[in-house]
């Protein structure tokens, strides 16, 4: 049975619950360059190791981009 999550607004399926660092590594994402929120809560960088991505989670993974004002 697969788990359904959303990442940056898009539905995704994962095989099983996974630790956040593993999830990022699996997607070739450098944790240093991003910030992550799960279900609206921003995850402090030093707590990634303890966080598990679960069924129904909504992840936001962001980075810096060029921009000055709206």
């Amino acid at each position, binding site marked *: 049975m697969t788990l359904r999550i959303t*990442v*940056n*607004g*898009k539905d995704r399926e994962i095989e099983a619950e996974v630790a956040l660092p593993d999830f990022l590594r699996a*997607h*070739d*994402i*450098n944790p240093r*360059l*991003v*910030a*992550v*929120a799960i279900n*609206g809560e*921003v*995850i*402090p*960088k030093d707590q990634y190791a303890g966080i598990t991505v679960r069924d129904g989670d909504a992840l*936001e*993974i*962001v*980075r*810096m*981009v*060029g*921009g*000055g*004002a*709206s």
Partner: protein
Amino acid sequence: MSDTLTIAGKQFSSRLFLGTGKYASPEQTLAALEASGTEMVTVAIRRLDLDNPNARTELDYIDWSRYTVLPNTAGCKTVDEALLTARLGRSVTGSNWVKLEVIPDPKYLLPDPIGTLRAAEQLIAEGFVVLPYIHADPVLAKHLEEAGCATVMPLGSAIGSGQGILTLDEIKIIIENAKVPVVVDAGIGAPSDAALAMEVGADAVLVNTAVAKSQDPPLMAAAMKLGVEAGRAAHLAGRIDRKPYASASSPTEGVAQAAPIARA
């Protein structure tokens, strides 16, 4: 002349803050930052493209040891979006400074005074150093100052419009009453606009489009640097008053006369 600007305890010798959007290439971004002499650079926070998670952006080329990074909440239409983006910005940049924008309207990009104050109060409670972008409303500016904002950032005119400082009278009042630095943001189209803002006593200006979309961004960045320095120096030098009438700068007496009075 030592003339440093202090915001939330941090000192800046450059009074020109730069945005990083709309440049044609990373090379132009870097050259413009270099030419501007800026020490404060604002960046936006956006979703990572998971299909291309390691795509490099102009920001990857910047030597961040040289600049104070100022994450902003550009693009946030609601208080909730602004709060989340501010927190994500803090996590990704490691800085607790935020240029706060709550802008519901996509056409004129005018900030929401009610939402901005509410978001500012919450972020300050969470330990952020908040620099709010606002309409040039002196009473709103005072509310934000009293809420604990580190600066107020009134607009000169619509974002990216290049219309200059259309709100000069209100900005003068904000400056007259403010106990925190006043940074004029949005609308600056040319160095004359930046100089004007500084002449009336603004502590700094933030520029993005006017540099990034000019024909020669590095040269325009250098021009903005000169304009800000010119305006700051003029403010310190104390400009003359505007007078409705003329006033000669040469002696009014003693002009030679061609036709002497004839004599018998």
